[in-house]
């Protein structure tokens, strides 16, 4: 953990009193630890995005194009015409404040501009100035202000301090979704080259190699093979993982972190055991080697550019349908954007589980189902041989990732699975789960080290709910179905609630699966001894 970050008891001294000075005239301060560095020019160049240059947010001069204001205003006009959401959300907020203390960044920082209402007002004030009658005639009375460099800097700071989690939208009486406002604001910022490297670099990598981490075909194959070998060591079962096999029934796409990062990796082991267990005819691809899509944190166009490969590869490999792995924002894209952007998927078939015969009608058009939907259906039909006692060393809770919860409603499937593969499951308080779940604080491309203080602040509500179940029930494992969670929750929990580990749901599935021909299992997929195994008696000679 970086040394500049204050201790938890210092960080938690949060002052919720707003400043005396009115917000329109309080310029932003770029304080270290609370913002992300600028995108490297090479990445922007590769993607053919505007204004690649060397700069950093704390610089005085942002090296904006000369006509930056016109570019932004023209960009706004265009988007107001293209997105009803945008125009409506600019017009109808009544500033009731119901959303104010719903944002994890506000709760963790006390900065009033992190209240969703004010975050959106940063943009609305400019909208009113240039696009409404009242704002043009009487800017002061209408709450309108000019678009200046200071305002642009403020946008950059606060729209890259929103994880697009949509929690505010649940509470707004008009459904105003500040995540949507942030997405559009970031599009505008991108028009003048104000973007962050932690979002743009994965985008560039993904566009080129197919995945965020820039893993190339041989690397992909190696890590899959490594996993297969390791599974054999752990279970005595050798699974087969067909790579780019034409004519397979299913194309399985997971976030790249699953095959390249920890603890994601144990989730991959879980998937592989599961597919072997039920004899699924599937394949994975080194081209469509990323489920995640940081285009979502960049622009609508970029979502489409990156997501193209899913259907493209499904068509080339002539599979029947797709299954997607554990990843939060990936599922927002698949569920709410993919079919519209990259469809129609009329060359695929409505997903049918080859094991249970269940027809997944709810995915009849998109033809892609979530691995949790697939697994829950298997368990329900009694198709899995499970020994939940193999997860007895875990006292488990479940963190709903923002996107599956609030942009999909995938709430019960993972819970059903967990209750069947583990024997100690505890829910966090109800204001912090399901549709009211709190973000990890690092989503939407903000999970970088230079932004650590802000991430720890934003993650406070989540961590605090974990603390509740840790202290009360002895919970020692937080499960989730999101690759960003798996990367960013471990340091968050280390900081706020030491002693709680993070795992994917399918890691626990993998632990519990009783495989045919397996050797007696003495460890879980992490190689830790199982609780049910008595330590061997030590005999001294």
């Amino acid at each position: 953990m970086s040394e500049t970050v204050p201790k938890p008891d210092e960080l938690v001294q949060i002052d919720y009193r707003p400043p005396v000075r009115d917000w329109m005239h309080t310029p932003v301060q770029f304080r270290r630890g609370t913002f992300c560095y600028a995108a490297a020019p090479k990445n922007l160049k590769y993607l053919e995005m505007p204004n690649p240059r060397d700069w950093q947010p704390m610089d005085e001069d942002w090296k904006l194009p000369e006509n930056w204001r016109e570019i932004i205003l023209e960009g706004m006009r265009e988007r107001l015409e293209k997105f009803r959401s945008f125009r409506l959300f600019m017009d109808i907020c009544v500033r009731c404040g119901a959303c104010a203390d719903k944002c994890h960044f506000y709760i963790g920082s006390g900065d009033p501009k992190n209240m969703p209402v004010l975050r959106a007002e940063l943009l609305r004030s400019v909208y009113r100035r240039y696009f409404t009658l009242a704002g043009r005639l009487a800017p002061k009375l209408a709450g309108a202000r000019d678009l200046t460099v200071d305002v642009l800097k403020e946008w950059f700071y606060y729209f890259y301090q929103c994880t697009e989690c949509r929690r505010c939208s649940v509470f707004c009486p008009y459904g105003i979704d500040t995540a949507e406002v942030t997405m559009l604001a970031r599009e505008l910022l991108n028009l003048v080259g104000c973007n962050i490297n932690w979002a743009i670099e994965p985008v560039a990598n993904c566009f080129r190699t197919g995945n965020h981490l820039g893993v190339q075909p041989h690397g992909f194959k190696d890590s899959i093979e490594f996993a297969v070998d390791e599974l054999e060591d752990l279970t005595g079962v050798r699974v087969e993982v067909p790579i780019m096999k034409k004519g397979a029934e299913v194309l399985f796409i997971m976030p790249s972190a699953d095959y390249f990062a920890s603890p994601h990796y144990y989730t991959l082991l879980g998937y592989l055991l599961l597919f072997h267990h039920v004899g699924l005819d599937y394949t994975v691809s080194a081209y469509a080697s990323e489920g995640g899509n940081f285009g979502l944190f960049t622009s609508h166009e970029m979502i489409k550019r990156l997501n193209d490969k899913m259907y493209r590869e499904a068509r080339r490999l002539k599979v029947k349908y797709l299954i997607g792995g554990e990843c939060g924002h990936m599922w927002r894209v698949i569920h709410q954007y993919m079919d519209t952007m990259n469809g129609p998927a009329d060359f695929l078939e409505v997903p049918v589980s080859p094991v249970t015969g269940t027809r997944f009608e709810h995915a009849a058009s998109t033809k892609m189902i979530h691995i949790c939907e697939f697994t829950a259906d298997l368990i329900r039909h009694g198709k899995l041989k499970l020994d939940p006692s193999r997860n007895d060393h875990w006292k488990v809770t479940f963190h709903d990732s923002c996107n599956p919860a609030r942009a999909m409603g995938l709430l019960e499937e993972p819970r059903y699975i967990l209750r069947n593969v583990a024997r100690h499951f505890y829910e966090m308080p109800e204001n912090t789960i399901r549709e009211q779940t709190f973000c990890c604080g690092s989503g939407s491309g903000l999970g970088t080290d230079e932004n650590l203080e802000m991430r720890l602040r934003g993650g406070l509500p989540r961590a605090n709910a974990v603390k509740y179940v840790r202290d009360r029930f002895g919970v020692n494992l937080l499960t989730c179905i999101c690759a960003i969670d798996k990367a960013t929750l471990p340091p968050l929990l280390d900081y706020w609630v030491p002693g709680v580990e993070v795992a994917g749901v399918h890691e626990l599935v993998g632990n519990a699966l009783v495989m045919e021909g397996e050797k007696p299992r003495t460890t879980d997929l992490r190689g830790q001894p199982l609780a049910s195994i008595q330590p061997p008696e030590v005999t001294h000679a």
Partner: protein
Amino acid sequence: MHVLPALITVLLLVAAGYAAGRIEALRFFFGAVVPLAAVAVFLGGIAWRVLRWAASPVPFRIPTTCGQQRSLPWLKHARLDNPATGWGVLGRMALEVLLFRSLFRNTKAELHAGPKLVYSEEKWLWLAALAFHWSFLIVFLRHLRFFMEPVPAFVLALQNLDGFFQIGAPVLYWSGVIILVALLYLLARRLWDPQIRYVSLFTDYFALMLLLGLVSSGLLMRYFTKVDIVAVKQLAVGLITLSPVVPAAVSPLVFVHLFLLSVLLAYFPFSKLVHMPGVFLSPTRNLANNNRARRHVNPWNYPVKVHTYEEWEEEFRDKIVAAGLPLDKE
């Protein structure tokens, strides 16, 4: 910051209305022309706003889901909070519009020592908002008795219900009391709560104070000073039949009431008050979460630059071969 200017503006409007009622030369203008013009601006303005929203397409289906999706048949689906059909959406919208469902979820987050975050129920905003909007509707409907002859039965019924306890003479209408209390609460909350005060603009105070002025002038006329009801009815019927007359017996207080209403109507389409028609168009609420079951079409979906498999294979050919993975083009 913005409270005082808003208060002064509303007081000036009150004074203007009152003066107009006293100056013979202005009575017709303020009693007939202004109200009719205000109604025209209101209707035209709202239509323009709604058409403008409607002119922007909904490129993506982006409901905010607040409950379990409809997926596997044996999982209990949240039909209203995460509707999958048009009927479900209708139910969700009805709950939003009639009962303010989302506002009902409101909680208050507080950080205690430990640290311990506590989320407590906070229903006052919901209650006040609901009380205000429903009373406003009832008061509005009750006013139809001024505009219609004979007075429709439902208006009379509503009136009886509203004055159920028969307190005082003239009978006290509950809606009038509730609306006043609700507005005062909403104003007090805006002033009291440091966060809400911080985000409040002139228009937020102005709207509330305008409504307070409107309501108080109404209450004043009904319960404290006598106004000539017959004359008021003549005026009202004249307005609605577009053959306005302004009888001499219409007192200045009526002018205040009428003028504040006119300002409210004319201001409505150009302010945040358009949330009233706007809520019906909100794409996070009025769309079914059947995204994967039915394709949503984006009218401006344009081709974008992608990295095709062929390009990818070309770029990584050596590595694909070295890894022993299959190639499409040998």
